């Protein structure tokens, strides 16, 4: 394990996504934008254990795995900007990223990374090439039928798949525990595969488990499940209503509070106790989001950086290198926009 390499991978992904955030805030990226900020240690620990020919099935949060697998950053950013020179010709966008060369397929449909990874693994198994497939998804996905069906299928067929569940405790804006029965690691184990629960902010811990699970899969020992806890400061997507309310309570709540109070006070409806309970549920979710924002738990990148501080010069060099790479991508993208403006 090369902690320096892992740090560089994570930092590159973080700075790239911060740059994505700027472009999105400027209105240059359209639609939804689901960031993987906070998931970097999970992705780095897994991706660093991959070799050529291994496949990845990504969810709607696919930017970090693309960056860390070495996809050309400029073509990735141009894709987000909707440019024809983008990775997918500007036609896919961040939820539909594909690389045929690297065997990476993405989808915005929850659960689809399960069957997708199973199929990549089926092809490897059939061709006996020793390659494996990764499925990335969130804990909300553990309630989606096709994900659970895929788990059974990979165990029944002994397919080389690593199921990587990134658990931030929220399924879109629903608290996952409020809609989930039992323990998710136990659930995966019940299918007949090993299940590991780890701190997804600790890149070394992720790397070690990933190495074991991936080498088992290569040795024809079948699938594994890795449950990694993480924290996502930007919520479900940029502009997440819960995050907006917690950051700008007055401004955002004034839009909601009026109709809410009016509706709650209507004569016909459920009992006062039930109405109070509903209000309490909403307020407690908002409170939880606000608390998470303030707590700012262990940032995977800061955690790793602390360990590297004893070599300040080397650290500075790595950070400079990554920063200049991302700055170059930004500048190239700006150039493109300038040319377009001139043409207009």
């Amino acid at each position, binding site marked *: 394990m090369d902690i320096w390499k892992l740090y560089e991978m994570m930092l590159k992904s973080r700075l790239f996504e911060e740059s994505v955030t700027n472009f*999105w*805030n400027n*209105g240059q990226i*359209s*639609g*939804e*934008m689901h960031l993987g900020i906070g998931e970097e240690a999970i992705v780095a620990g897994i991706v660093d254990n991959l070799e050529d020919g291994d496949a990845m099935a990504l969810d709607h949060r696919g930017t970090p795995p693309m960056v860390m697998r070495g996809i050309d950053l400029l073509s990735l950013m141009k894709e987000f900007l*909707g*440019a024809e020179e983008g990775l*997918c*010709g*500007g*036609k*896919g*966008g961040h*939820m*539909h990223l594909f690389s045929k060369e690297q065997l990476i397929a993405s*989808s*915005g*449909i*929850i*659960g689809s990374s399960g069957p997708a990874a199973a199929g990549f693994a089926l092809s490897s198994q059939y061709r006996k090439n020793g390659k494996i497939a990764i499925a990335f998804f969130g804990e*909300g*996905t553990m*309630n*989606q*039928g*096709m994900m659970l069906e895929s788990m059974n299928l990979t165990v029944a067929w002994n397919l080389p798949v690593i199921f990587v569940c990134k658990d931030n405790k929220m*399924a*879109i*804006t*629903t608290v996952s525990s*409020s*809609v*989930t029965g039992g323990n998710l690691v136990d659930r995966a184990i019940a299918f007949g595969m090993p299940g590991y629960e780890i701190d997804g902010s600790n890149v070394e811990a992720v790397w070690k488990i990933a190495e074991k699970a991936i080498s088992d899969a290569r040795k024809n020992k079948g699938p594994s499940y890795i449950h990694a806890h993480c924290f996502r400061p930007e919520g479900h*997507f*940029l*502009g*997440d*209503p*819960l995050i*907006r309310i917690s950051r700008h309570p007055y401004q*955002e709540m004034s839009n909601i509070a009026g*109709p*809410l109070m*009016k*509706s*709650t006070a*209507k004569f*016909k*409806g*459920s009992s006062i106790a*039930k*109405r109070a*309970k*509903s*209000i309490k*549920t*909403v307020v407690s*979710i908002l409170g939880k989001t606000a608390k998470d924002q303030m707590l700012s738990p262990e940032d995977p990148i800061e955690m790793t950086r602390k360990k590297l501080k004893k070599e300040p010069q080397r650290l500075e060099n790595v950070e400079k290198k990554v920063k200049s790479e991302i700055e170059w991508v930004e500048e190239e993208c700006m150039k493109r926009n300038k040319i377009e403006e001139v043409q207009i």
Partner: protein
Amino acid sequence: MKTMTFAEAIEDALASAMEKDDRIIILGEDVHLLRVNLFSRFGSDRVRSTPISESAFLGAAVTAAMAGCIPVVEIMLVDFIGVAADALVNHAAKLDTFSGGKWQAPLVVRASCGGGYGDGGQHEQTLWGWLAHIPGLSVVVPSNPRDAGGLMTSAIAENGPVVFLEHKLLADYWLDYLGSGGRKNVTYDIPDDGASGFVPDKWEPIPLGCADILREGKDLTIASVGVGVHRSMKAAGILEQRGIFSTVIDLRTVFPIDEECICRSVEQTSNLIVVDEDYKQFGLSGEIAAILLENEIQFKYKRVCTEGTIPYSREMEDRVLPSVDDIIKASDSMLNPNVA
């Protein structure tokens, strides 16, 4: 008469129905926030947030409907119906026939649909033709607040499954949720007459299968649903300046479809353009042509539809989705081939 947004009208109609009929329950992902007003008023027994398990909760809604509830099930984006299609296509839609007409599932499936905000073709489809293809499913696509509330009132009162589609350019909260995310520097081609407008003081049901004629003209019939209706009205205004007078029909429901209204109009104008944001092949646009042919009506025909998968990029997406320009071009090539 009072003014409401498209989203407010649906919610208001739903709330009026819920206060009268406690069989109505709402199920769906994130409804404690998406429907916060109804959640706070009617409580978590009636407004129930679900796990991301569409096939389970839509499937459960079908039998809950069979056993006395009237579920309004939310599938956030109609594109996600693929995950749960079995419940709708093989179960809800078939029950009436399979039970020999003895058992029905009164159920509303509510979903956002449509493009124009750059989210890509896995989140911007309309799919109403695909759904309307299945016997036993009604498919409702309102274009303005008045119709949205009136059609929701009807959908709830229907004795079978109804898919209720709300276009994201009309429903402001969807566009904010999925498109702008609170940003002020992104713009969309929102039809103002559709996003807000007059609604009646008290909701009356608008029957399914009853089209609305928005303007009448002798030269050309333009038939559409949803946002396409507004694009058609705009195009009709431009065509009028060129001396072409159009009838614009808002179909309001894809199935049942108002055959009589379409036939009557095309018999008079002999020229038809169907503006359909759904895919061109095997859908609403072709169905309308078939209906007219079966009725032995002589007419010229063009269609402006979405062709191919909707690309992510806003510019490319604009080229794919039906536009006012496309309608004018279709009219030119049909009525004035020399210009085209």
